[in-house]
């Protein structure tokens, strides 16, 4: 039997790792909610599992997503992950080939060179030896990049690297030592029995026979011990993402979705964070306001180690830029919202003081301006204008005595209160018998779409205006204006509406692209989700965003959110307008030449 005492740390570490991982996975899987469990059961034996294996190969081993974002960083991850994976697989095949059976001792593949002491002299063994050396070289090149990244992160295109906790540092040190120790140990064996290929053999030639004899066993002991340290620290460090991400990919492919409540899926997501720190560079709090301890990576880390505090949970604009940047595709904003949930008395009614309006209006179309739009009355006037130009009958739901949509409450974790508001609004809407609900505020829009269960069509006013234009109900004047469109977070990243506003604006003027647009668009700083930062910090964020948006000095900075408009209005010398205001100004009025003249003068005044 191929045995030496130095295999004990490795075997012990590997079995401990296996036990801890199985225990953790079982715990999280049992915490999945009913819907998620149903999907897992239904799709377990289906084509989706094969698709998941494919995805695991591409994301967990090749790291395609990171590769796309940053090739050098992608290579680093790929060489370490895929290189190590191949080392294990090829090593296993080599060992099986050598032993002549598939069921050889499990440690034989890991310490193969030590046990297979015969000189490799036929081509298959030579081939294996060469491949293993090549793979080790690839892994070592990745390791070199990792060390460079740790010392000087800017070389690899990362402005700010993550600060790590003690578990991570132990695991990281062990991981860094594994491959150099393996190289040295195998080289010393190669020096003694000449079983190495170009790399191990080459380094082995540098060792004297006496020296190799002295260091061979200690090196294997060190290699095995470092493996033990890495295996035991893995489940408690960031490297837990390696096994977690595999299960997460399967769960996602099977159709499990994260809901409003914290569930087992959230556990897998939190543990799948590799703390790469890509979200730090994406965060506006980091690059505009120099707040560097609240980003998603730290939020997730603190949650995992049960150290989450109010300040970190609440200090987030919830703009979704980190979610967009995350190479693992974690729903970071949603997890933050799940964790903000407070304990409340179930079934308590908070808003009974709101008048129960006996609405007798039976309409097809409801217009819901929203709280924020009430503070930008120009948008409401513009919408009224557009409605009358299109000859549409509508009911202005919150013209007077309207109430909030409930999303601000939800974002702060007061679920019961949010539900109370939702049921109040739902009653009003269903009573009116409407078929279409138009919102002016993307915050309300997202709430109506995702948190209400209304069976009517819901539109943001930019979509509605586009529909009116397509149906030829309104016509617009064309002008020479240069327009920059700022994507509001909730409308763009929140609900994937990028095209309709641009299509409307392109009928009026020329749209100029900016550095950060669509998925990369910036937050105006006015976000309601953050209850920690003060006005001064918000203004810093706004100024930086405005500076980037108005680099080309456009005539109009257009947006589709009353909050964004409010944030930018006083800071920009040019015009800041909501898309509805612009459309209202450029309405082409038929059979009314006098009004048309006045309109043209207005347009002229904007151009000035």
């Amino acid at each position, binding site marked *: 039997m191929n045995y030496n005492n130095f295999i004990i740390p490795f075997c012990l570490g590997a079995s401990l790792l296996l036990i801890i991982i199985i225990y953790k996975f079982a715990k999280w899987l049992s915490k999945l909610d009913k819907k998620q469990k149903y999907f897992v059961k239904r799709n377990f034996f289906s084509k989706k599992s094969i698709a998941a294996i494919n995805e695991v190969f591409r994301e967990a081993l090749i790291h395609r997503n990171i590769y796309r974002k940053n090739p050098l960083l992608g290579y680093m991850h790929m060489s370490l992950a895929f290189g190590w994976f191949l080392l294990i697989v090829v090593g296993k095949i080599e060992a099986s080939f050598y032993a002549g059976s598939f069921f050889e001792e499990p440690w034989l593949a890991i310490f193969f060179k030590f046990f297979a002491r015969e000189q490799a002299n036929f081509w298959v063994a030579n081939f294996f030896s060469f491949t293993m050396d090549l793979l080790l070289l690839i892994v070592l090149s990745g390791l070199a990049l990792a060390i460079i990244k740790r010392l000087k992160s800017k070389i690899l295109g990362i402005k700010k690297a993550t600060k790590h906790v003690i578990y991570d540092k132990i695991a990281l040190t062990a991981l860094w030592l594994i491959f150099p120790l393996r190289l040295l140990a195998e080289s010393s064996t190669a020096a003694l029995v000449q079983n190495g290929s170009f790399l191990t053999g080459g380094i082995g030639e540098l060792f004297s026979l006496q020296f190799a004899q002295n260091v061979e066993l200690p090196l294997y002991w060190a290699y095995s011990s470092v493996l033990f340290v890495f295996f035991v620290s893995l489940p408690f460090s960031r490297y837990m993402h390696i096994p977690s991400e595999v299960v997460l990919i399967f769960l996602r492919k099977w159709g499990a979705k994260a809901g409003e409540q914290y569930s087992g899926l959230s556990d897998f997501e939190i543990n799948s964070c590799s703390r790469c720190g890509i979200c730090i560079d994406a965060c506006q709090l980091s690059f505009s306001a120099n707040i560097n301890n609240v980003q998603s990576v730290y939020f997730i880390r603190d*949650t995992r180690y049960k150290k989450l505090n109010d300040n970190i949970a609440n200090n987030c604009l919830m703009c979704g830029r980190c979610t967009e940047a995350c190479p693992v595709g974690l729903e970071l904003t949603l997890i933050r919202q799940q964790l903000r949930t407070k304990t409340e008395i179930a079934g308590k009614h908070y808003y009974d003081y709101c008048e129960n309006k006996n609405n007798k209006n039976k309409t097809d179309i409801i217009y819901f301006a929203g709280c*924020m739009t009430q503070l930008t009355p120009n948008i409401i006037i513009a919408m009224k204008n557009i409605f009358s130009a299109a000859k549409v009958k509508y009911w202005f739901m919150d013209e007077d005595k309207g109430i909030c949509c409930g999303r*601000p409450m939800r974002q702060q974790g007061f679920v019961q209160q949010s539900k109370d508001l939702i049921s109040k609004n739902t009653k009003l809407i269903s009573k009116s018998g409407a078929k279409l609900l138009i919102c002016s505020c993307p915050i309300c829009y997202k709430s109506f779409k995702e948190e209400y269960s209304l069976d009517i069509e819901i539109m943001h006013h930019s979509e509605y205006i586009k529909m009116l234009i397509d149906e030829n109900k309104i016509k617009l004047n064309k002008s020479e204006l240069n327009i920059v469109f700022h994507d509001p977070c909730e409308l763009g990243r929140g609900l994937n509406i990028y095209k309709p506003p641009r299509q409307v604006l392109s009928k009026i003027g020329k749209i100029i692209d900016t550095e950060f647009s669509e998925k990369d668009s910036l937050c105006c700083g006015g976000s309601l989700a953050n*209850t920690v930062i003060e006005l001064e910090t918000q203004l810093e964020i706004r100024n930086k965003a405005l500076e980037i948006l108005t680099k080309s000095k456009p005539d109009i900075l257009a947006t589709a959110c009353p909050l964004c408009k409010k944030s930018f209005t006083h800071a920009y010398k040019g015009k800041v307008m909501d898309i509805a205001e612009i459309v209202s100004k450029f309405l082409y009025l038929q059979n009314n030449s006098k009004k048309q003249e006045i309109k043209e003068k207005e347009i002229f005044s904007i151009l000035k």
Partner: protein
Amino acid sequence: MKNWGFKISQARIIDLDKANTKMFEDLCLKVPSAKRCIMCGGCSATCTASNHTNFNFRNCNLMFRRGQFEGLAEELDKCMLCGKCKLVCPRGVNTRAIIYNMRIILNKMNYKNIEL
């Protein structure tokens, strides 16, 4: 005694030496701008909840500052956290964060215990 339909009203004295102002100090650590409030009432004028009832941010803030916590938690429950007050405030007070933190402090609210 003859009932005249009138009576002498009880003395309403707030003894600031005995009042619990510690809570307001705690609040100011979380929201420093709370000290800047000049009680102008812009927040109450725009408030969505004030439109329906006599909920009043100034009042809540003053009560909290003076340590009059009786019935304050129920009063704060009327707020919808919509954030209009914060946008109109001429002194840049983060009114919304003040209400949020007052609620957390008064109700001793905490995050749901999540077992990880």
